[in-house]
């Protein structure tokens, strides 16, 4: 059941589910006979799978660390390219019941706060912005990924959480975003690369090019990503 020679296998971070699905369909339309096989998962899990011999052509990670793991492991064909950036935003339930206005409120003991755990990229980024703001956050929970934070905000379990702009954009019916100036201090880069032993190197190249094209940028921008 190995993918046909005309298939491009893309391992992509879960946060790219919406955009890469759309880009994959575009790519298939533009290159009849080519199929894009997408494997979404946590960036670190995907890196682990690639290192254990998973048959991937392209890897798009949510953080440079995970890409580095692959570069050090099975290797990539050429240096990885940053194709999108994401930055943090405060997410609050609709109506902002906690009256959250900025990062300073995260130090308030009365508010219920959800953050990402420091081990995951969004947690690391959050640490940076709090340092920049000089705030010690009093989190009630340190979630395993940004979607978990968002779920808590959506359900009103917490008064505020720190998530990516893209997440707020995806859930705009139920959460509101609050911008804060220190967000620029922790911009998250999304690298993409063709893998060294890609079974379909040519297709892989073409797909990466498609992601980096104007069309690709437009789709990513729609989802809330900023261009590198």
């Amino acid at each position: 059941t190995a993918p046909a020679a005309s298939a491009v296998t893309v391992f992509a971070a879960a946060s790219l589910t919406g955009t890469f699905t759309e880009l994959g369909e575009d790519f298939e339309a533009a290159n009849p006979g080519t199929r894009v096989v997408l494997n979404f998962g946590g960036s670190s899990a995907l890196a682990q799978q690639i290192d254990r011999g998973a048959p991937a052509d392209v890897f798009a990670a949510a953080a440079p660390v995970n890409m580095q793991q692959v570069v050090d492991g099975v290797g990539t064909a050429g240096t990885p390219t940053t194709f999108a950036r994401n930055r943090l935003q405060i997410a609050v339930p609709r109506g902002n019941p906690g009256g959250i206005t900025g990062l300073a409120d995260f130090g308030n003991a009365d508010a219920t706060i959800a953050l990402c755990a420091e081990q995951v990229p969004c947690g690391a980024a959050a640490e940076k912005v709090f340092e920049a703001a000089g705030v010690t956050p009093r989190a009630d929970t340190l979630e395993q990924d940004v979607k978990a934070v968002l779920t808590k905000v959506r359900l009103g379990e917490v008064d505020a959480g720190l998530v990516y702009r893209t997440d707020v954009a995806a859930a705009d019916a139920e959460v509101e975003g609050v911008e804060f100036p220190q967000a620029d201090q922790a911009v998250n880069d999304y690298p993409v690369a063709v893998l060294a032993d890609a079974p379909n190197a040519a297709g892989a190249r073409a797909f990466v090019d498609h992601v980096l094209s104007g069309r690709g940028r437009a789709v990513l921008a729609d989802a809330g990503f900023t261009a590198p």
Partner: protein
Amino acid sequence: MNRVRRRAVGGRLPVVLVLPALVGLAFLLVPLAGLLVRTPWGAVPGQLVRAEVGQALRLSLVCASLATVICLLLGVPLAWLLARSDLPGRGVLRALVTVPLVLPPVVGGVALLFVLGRRGLVGQYLDAWFGISLPFTTAGVVLAEAFVAMPFLVVSVEGALRAADPRYEEAAATLGASRWLIFRRVTLPTIAPGVVAGTVLCWARALGEFGATITFAGNFPGRTTTMPLAVYLALETDPDAAVVLSVVLLLVSVAVLVGLRDRWIGGAP
């Protein structure tokens, strides 16, 4: 007869049993009810007609059922060995067999990759000699589910074996039946309720498997994306869709369980 017997024993249902039973029932069912209340039912038909959903549902049912068959073929004999033989160190073996229960499934998936991955302890030879590669295939999904679900079967069946009266097996032995015949024709029918219970647990656990599957078999639509994986992806883009998919999985599994139960239990004495 059963109805009559049940009714005849004991008299009124005791509060001290019925109350906790009802609390337990509520504890299990109210969250489900909550889920159903919050389900955007309008979205259900839309989700159901999506090709990927149908695919994922079919894949889930097929893989979980295959995994259950594997577990039955391997797990029931294993339970028998643990309960009825005089292997040395059975106590430790029994505990080891329950270990995959404790292992976080993601780590279970990693362990499977260590062993059966293309570069794994066993997998490298499978690949080199037979050209077989299990990870990222449907077979890999079945394997991951079986690995996670088998202990449930083994532990239940072993419990049933311990509770069964061994004198009937003795009687069968005096009639010249080999251990294998005794097992098939005396032991198995006697412990049938325990095997059914174990099978239900095993199948349900396999159907809901997520961590080991995504780690060992990846997440390829149509090949390895089972419903729980689809739910996970849906959570990324459309939380409502995730709830809808879960509810679909629930309803299908309840339908299957009710259907099977009625057939199996109806036939039992």
